[in-house]
C-alpha cells in the first residue's frame, strides 16, 4: 500500500473505491499513443503483467 505522508494537514483521500478496484479486470482503454497509433491497452499488453501510470502532464 502506498504510504501517505504529505503535509500533515493535507486532505488524504481513500482510493479504495475511486477508479478501478483491486481484483477487478482493468477496463478496456483504447487511446492513441505518442506516434498517433491507436492502442488497445489489453491487446498491447499481450498477456504480460502491466504497470499503468496516470500522471498529470508531459507539459507541467
Amino acid at each position, binding site marked *: *500500500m*502506498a*504510504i*501517505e*505522508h*504529505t*503535509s500533515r*494537514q*493535507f*486532505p*488524504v*483521500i481513500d*482510493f*479504495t473505491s*475511486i*477508479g*478501478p*478496484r*483491486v*481484483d*477487478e*479486470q*482493468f*477496463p478496456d*482503454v483504447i*487511446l*492513441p*499513443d*505518442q*506516434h*498517433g497509433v491507436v*492502442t488497445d*491497452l*489489453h491487446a*498491447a*499488453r*499481450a*498477456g*504480460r*503483467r*502491466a*504497470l*499503468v*501510470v*496516470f*500522471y*498529470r*502532464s*508531459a*507539459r*507541467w
Partner: protein
Amino acid sequence: MELQRSLADYQRNDIAIFAISYDAVGVLAQFAARHGISYPLLSDTGSRVITALGLLNEQVFEHHAFYGVARQEHHWGVPYPGAFLLDAQGVVTQKRFQSSYRERETGVALLEEGFHLASTARGPWASAAGPGVAIRAYLDADAYRVYQRLRLSVELTVEPGLHVYGRPIPDGYVPFDVEVAPVTGLIVGALEGPRPRPFRVEGLDEEFAVYTGRARFSLPLVFTDKAGDLVVRVAGRGQVCSARDCLPPITVEVELPLAQRNHVDSDR
C-alpha cells in the same frame, strides 16, 4: 521521465508499461523524443477515459489553494496521480495512488515495492560501520524533483552473536532508528521495516525485540522546495548487545549525494 531509466528492469521481467495523461499526441511526441521515451504514452485528450474511470482529480483547485498557488484553469482534467499493477490476465492486483497532484512514486519504487522485483537502476549508495554493526544506505534515484517521492533504503547488518534492539523496548534502552538531517522543505516519512523478533535476556524480567543478521528499512523522502544539489545525511542509531552485555548507543552516519532536477518543461 524517470520511468524510462527503469524500463530495462520492467522489460527483463516482462512487464508492460503504459502512461496516460490528458496531453495531445503532438505534446507526447515532443516529450517522448526529447526524453527518449520508448514505452507507450497514451493521449486522453479531454480526459474522457480519465473521467470514465472515475480518476478525475476533483480536488485540484482546492489543492492550489492549499499550496498557495494561483488557480490554473488548464490543470482541470488531470487524474489523481498513481499507478495500477495488473497481472497477466489484466486484473488489478494493486492500486498505488497519491492524494496530492504534485506527488508521484518512482519507477524503481513501483518495481520494488509494487512488483517485489529487484531494480538495477539504483541511485547513490554509501556504507559505514561501527562496533558490531554496519549500515548501507541508498536512494532509488540520483536526483530529486520537487514533490517526487524518493525512497531511502537502509540495510542494517548485525554481526553474528549480537543483536540490535527494536521496539517495543523497555525504558533506558535505545531502539534502532534512522534519522535524516534536516533540509529546507524536506519531508521525511515514517520508517518502515521488518518486525523485530522477541528476545528474552536470562535473569531479566523484561521483554525485548531485536534485529539480528540483516534487516532492510525504508523511509520515504519528499522535497517540497528546490534546495539545489545537496547531500542527504543519514544516521542509523541504536544499541548493540550480546547475550550478556550492551555497548553504549552508537550512531553510524553516511552521506548520499543528490542532484536537483527540474520538472519537465517547467522551471518550478
